[in-house]
């Protein structure tokens, strides 16, 4: 009987090369889920009576012009500063080998994966009025009133954006530098060019596509910045994302919010085209494997000293704010001078916390974990199903359609979803929908690539050794795919856990997650509890990061795309 069934199955399949007759229903369902809210925005923005006139009027309004000028300015400075800060590090990474380089390279993706609200909290704790930096300045320059007071303003926003972006700029630029064939520089030297001329004539032109790509990428993400500008920008500084949120949340002017979102989509189109263009150019760079010279004190004292100084500065700039959150979470009232205490953590269970945040701590934590767990499970489940279905064919149009989320700002999508479903649907359902949209492109891209790379041969080997397709799946395919599945799951979880904007727009005030709780605590100046909650959030983020780093990620660019859009 069993044999007959197997033979029948084999005949049905045609051959073992498993032309899986899976249904494409989930694919089309995803397309509907992803595109419908975007259509809704477009319809609301442009397809109603007087929309064009209103749009033209908006384009001439001071709000639009001021927002555009501010967004472009802050995005430009954020991009340039991030690259400038990253450049020396990229040089050391690209030209030398040193102990711990591999781990440092992995670690560099961490700040980028941090939830926006945690970055803002770190900034406030370290660079704020009563921040660690000002305490240090007071110690170094006693009585001189030397203080850093620019956090809540233009330069504070730039600082936060640089904090966020410089690490992945360093990583990508460093990798690009590593790939440059040293023989080109040697050839230039034999033709009589000195080091400086070789840098400008050979190295820089080869790095140019990556630099251009990174400039556009950071510009784009800073242009779309939400959490950082919402908290640090006050009433004076707004990006279009913040403007959409204010129109939606404070003024309840949905038409205007849709109009801004629609206008922003048009603006984004050009940037995205440029990003894709330079992204492709960057990938074209030939990979040149070589052993880099070791950076040691004996061989290169000057470069080693410079590298150490740079590392120290970066550690201060990057690690210190995060450490400050941890340290202050154990300090009395969250202040630097206070004694060691666990009170801040105890207060997470107090009525005061519940009064400010709107939920008990356990509920907040459970909400975050449940939401991110559901989103990650769905994204990985559907993503792997589709990746498996398409494993016989190269990346094509069908896959590109699923990458649309990368072309639309997340807040715009969440708002579109709100317009579509409003308060008729459960906020949980809408949030899962929105966050699936956010996480899916990267999850799919990781799983699609990994599954295609796995190929069929190992499964065929299992089959000729007697394994049924089911056994081959469980004993060969899934164990081998464990790491990409784990990474995809972790990314989906990280993106969902760190999301603030969708929860603010779609949560209807009922769903409080960790970022919302921190946002509300900061809003009520409850920094002590915010740091305690932030420390827990940081720990969770770090655990998720450890899951990610279990797999050597070839999709750093994709990760950056997703992480960048949820700030």
């Amino acid at each position, binding site marked *: 009987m069993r044999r007959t069934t197997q033979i029948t199955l084999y005949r049905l399949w045609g051959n*073992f090369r498993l032309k899986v007759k899976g249904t494409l229903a989930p694919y089309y369902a995803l397309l509907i889920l992803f595109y419908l809210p975007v259509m809704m925005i477009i319809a609301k923005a442009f397809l109603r009576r007087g929309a064009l006139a209103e749009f033209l009027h908006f384009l001439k309004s001071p709000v639009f012009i001021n927002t555009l000028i501010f967004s472009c300015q802050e995005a430009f400075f954020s991009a340039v500063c991030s690259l400038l800060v990253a450049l020396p590090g990229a040089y050391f990474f690209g030209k030398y080998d040193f102990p711990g380089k591999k781990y440092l390279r992995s670690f560099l993706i961490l700040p980028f994966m941090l939830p926006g609200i945690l970055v803002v909290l770190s900034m406030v704790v370290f660079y704020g009025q009563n921040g660690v930096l000002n305490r240090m300045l007071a110690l170094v320059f006693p009585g001189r009133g030397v203080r850093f007071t620019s956090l809540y303003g233009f330069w504070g926003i730039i600082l936060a954006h640089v904090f966020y972006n410089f690490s992945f700029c360093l990583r990508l630029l460093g990798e690009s530098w590593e790939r440059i064939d040293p023989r080109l520089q040697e050839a230039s030297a034999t033709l009589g060019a000195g080091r400086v001329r070789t840098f400008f004539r050979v190295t820089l032109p080869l790095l140019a596509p990556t630099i251009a790509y990174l400039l556009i990428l950071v510009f784009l993400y800073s242009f779309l910045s939400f959490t950082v500008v919402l908290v640090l920008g006050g009433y004076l500084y707004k990006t279009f994302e913040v403007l959409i949120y204010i129109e939606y949340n404070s003024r309840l002017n949905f038409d205007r919010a849709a109009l801004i979102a629609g206008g922003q989509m048009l603006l984004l189109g050009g940037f995205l085209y440029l990003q894709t263009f330079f992204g492709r150019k960057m990938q074209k760079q030939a990979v040149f494997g070589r052993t880099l010279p070791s950076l040691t004190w004996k061989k290169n004292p000057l470069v080693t000293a410079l590298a150490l100084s740079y590392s120290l500065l970066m550690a201060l700039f990057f690690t210190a704010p995060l450490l400050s959150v941890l340290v202050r979470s154990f300090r009395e009232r969250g202040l630097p001078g206070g004694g060691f205490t666990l009170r801040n953590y105890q207060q997470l269970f107090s009525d005061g916390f519940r009064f400010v945040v709107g939920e008990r701590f356990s509920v907040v934590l459970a909400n975050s974990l449940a939401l991110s767990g559901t989103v990650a499970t769905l994204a990985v489940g559907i993503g792997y199903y589709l990746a498996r279905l398409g494993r016989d064919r190269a990346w094509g149009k069908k896959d590109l359609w699923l990458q649309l989320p990368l072309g639309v700002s997340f807040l715009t999508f969440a708002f579109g979803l709100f317009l579509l479903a409003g308060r008729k649907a459960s906020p949980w359902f809408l949030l899962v929908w929105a966050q699936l949209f956010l996480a899916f492109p990267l999850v799919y891209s990781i799983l699609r690539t990994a599954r295609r790379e796995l190929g069929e041969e190992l499964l*065929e*080997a299992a089959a000729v050794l007697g*394994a049924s397709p089911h056994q081959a799946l469980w004993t060969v395919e899934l164990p081998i795919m464990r790491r990409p599945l784990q990474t995809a799951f972790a990314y989906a979880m990280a993106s969902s856990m760190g999301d603030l904007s969708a929860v603010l727009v779609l949560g209807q005030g009922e769903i409080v997650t960790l970022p919302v709780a921190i946002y509300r605590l900061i809003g009520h100046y409850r920094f002590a509890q915010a740091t305690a909650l932030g420390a827990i959030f940081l720990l969770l983020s770090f655990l998720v990061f450890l899951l990610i780093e279990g797999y050597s990620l070839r999709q750093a660019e994709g990760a950056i795309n997703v992480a960048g859009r949820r700030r």
Partner: protein
Amino acid sequence: MSQDVPDKGMLRIECKKSYPRASGSAPEFTLQARFGVQREEFFSLVGPSGCGKTTLLRLIAGLERPDQGRIILNNVEITDLPPARRKIGFVFQDYALFPHLTVEENIAYGLKILKLPSTEIRLKVAELLEIFALQGLATREVDQLSGGERQRVALARALAPQPLILLLDEPFAALDYELRHRLRRELKELQKNLGFTAIFVTHQQEEALSLSDRLAVMRNGRIIQIGTAQEVYDHPQTSFVAEFLGEANLIPCLAQSTPDNGCLRLELPNRRRLCLNLNEDAVRGKSLPGRYYLLIRPEDLVINPQTTVFEGTIDRLEYYGHYTRVEIKTAGLLLHAMVGKGVPGLIQGRTVRVGFHLDRARLLPREADHR
């Protein structure tokens, strides 16, 4: 297909399968094969890349299904059986070792699928580790193995469930020359000692000739000739087989009349006429007069012989140590000769006389052979 499966053989196959070409305009590729393999025979499928060797192997393994035909293994029709139930071992070109399992786990995989008792699995794995000299590597991850070690693990894994037949898909392709040479010998010895039946796919004629009890030469999805290595090399039926297995001087000629007193009159392209005393086998079954190739293997060409057939100039000399490859320009032809040490007068540009061993020359048809 009009033909049925062959009568003899442990494995008997007669099948046909068509594939669309990658580019839409090209005609579809059709694989058509009919042959049998004897028990404990080492049978090779040899042919240029893309001729359908691997596909034929995959059809036998059940990894692909034929459009028509039947495959019979040990008197049981397996055409419709899934690969898991065919009892066939397969060594893939790049071995397809499971990267998440150690060496011994890889070898034990098929035994575990068979649900054998764990003690039996342990014993069997230990035995295979010993046979393949892998004892010290049992707990190694497969990505820590060298090319030769991987190949041995792949063989051990494939043989562990005691398959009825072992299929090897170019298992030496990824290895360097020295290693390939050594492993080839080891494989042949193992096959003799363990007595398994093997079908071996290769595009390397040297490998096919040295390993096989019999071999099948394939081209464009068809089997052109089957025979022992010596038969196929010495008596190729087409110019393709002659050129694919070893080097060949193929001299276009017009055979003018039936041998008269053992003498066959041939006209060469430059209208030069020769009367050759050819071996009887060489002309058997040929319709005369007709257009043919005169096949002379380079090792059968003799420089400055007693009986001169051609006279030409040495155009190029390539020294290979144990022999020298000589290119001779003559009568609008370029002849290749392989001569051993000690042949005098091998100087580039010098005129030499050339003859050949008449009993080893063959006439091969020209029309049917789309060169």
